[in-house]
């Protein structure tokens, strides 16, 4: 779980909300007090240790099914399996508006 971290997004699966190249702020603090819920956009580690950003589309037996918003162009839990809470790094709490990604 992350206290606070920022990530640059690579990929299109969360468009239109989060675009390729956007920067997001992720925090796990909120999940110390309540469980992740359906609809949350979260950062998590998949099996090969890569950090992914997806939306929780359902919760079953304490595990989370993840999906992209851009259904035409997204990997989902059908491909990489459901994830457990310990793989969740945090919730996306802020996205830097498009067009202001340069630092």
């Amino acid at each position: 779980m992350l206290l606070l971290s920022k990530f640059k997004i690579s990929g299109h699966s969360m468009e239109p909300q989060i675009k390729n190249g956007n920067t997001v702020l992720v925090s796990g603090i909120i999940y110390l007090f309540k469980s992740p819920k359906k609809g949350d956009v979260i950062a998590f580690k998949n099996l090969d240790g890569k950090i992914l950003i997806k939306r929780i589309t359902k919760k079953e037996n304490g595990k989370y099914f993840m999906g992209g918003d851009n259904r035409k162009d997204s990997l989902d839990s059908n491909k990489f399996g459901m994830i457990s809470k310990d793989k969740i790094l945090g919730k996306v709490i802020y996205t830097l508006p498009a067009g202001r990604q340069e630092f």
Partner: protein
Amino acid sequence: MKLIFSFLLRNLLTQNIAYAHCDIPCGIYDPHGAQLAAHTIIRMTELLTEVKKESELKAEHDISRLTHVKESQSNLLEEELTTLENDYFKAEHYKEYPKLGENFSNANKLGAKVRQNIDIDAAEELLEEVMQIAEIFYKTKGVEFVRVKSVYPTQRELVIQK
């Protein structure tokens, strides 16, 4: 509150990459599509400068169509480059080929320039950046490549696998 978040995003935190992938990881990448789009942009730019002005209506019609194709091919080129930049090339490639990041950055800027103007020099520079990206792509694949004169009306070069 937004200002605090922006400040944190810009200044305080180390940035990592998070993947919103995306495409089924099929491993099929090719710089050919980007080169084709760059050639088409050159061709549309040339044709725009050659539009005959005999009939005003016909000229307006031709300019609209040519500009539309130039615009849509610029979109396609941007998409092809984004896929290569973010999905194919990895951190180690950017380290091994330090010019690669600059090639993408230049290509993005030139992509905007060729949309905004009828600028054959910019279109040619864009193709050159795209060809350099293609050459690095083939180097990372460990295959031989060569620049050949294309068979397109643009008469410009193309990087292909040998």
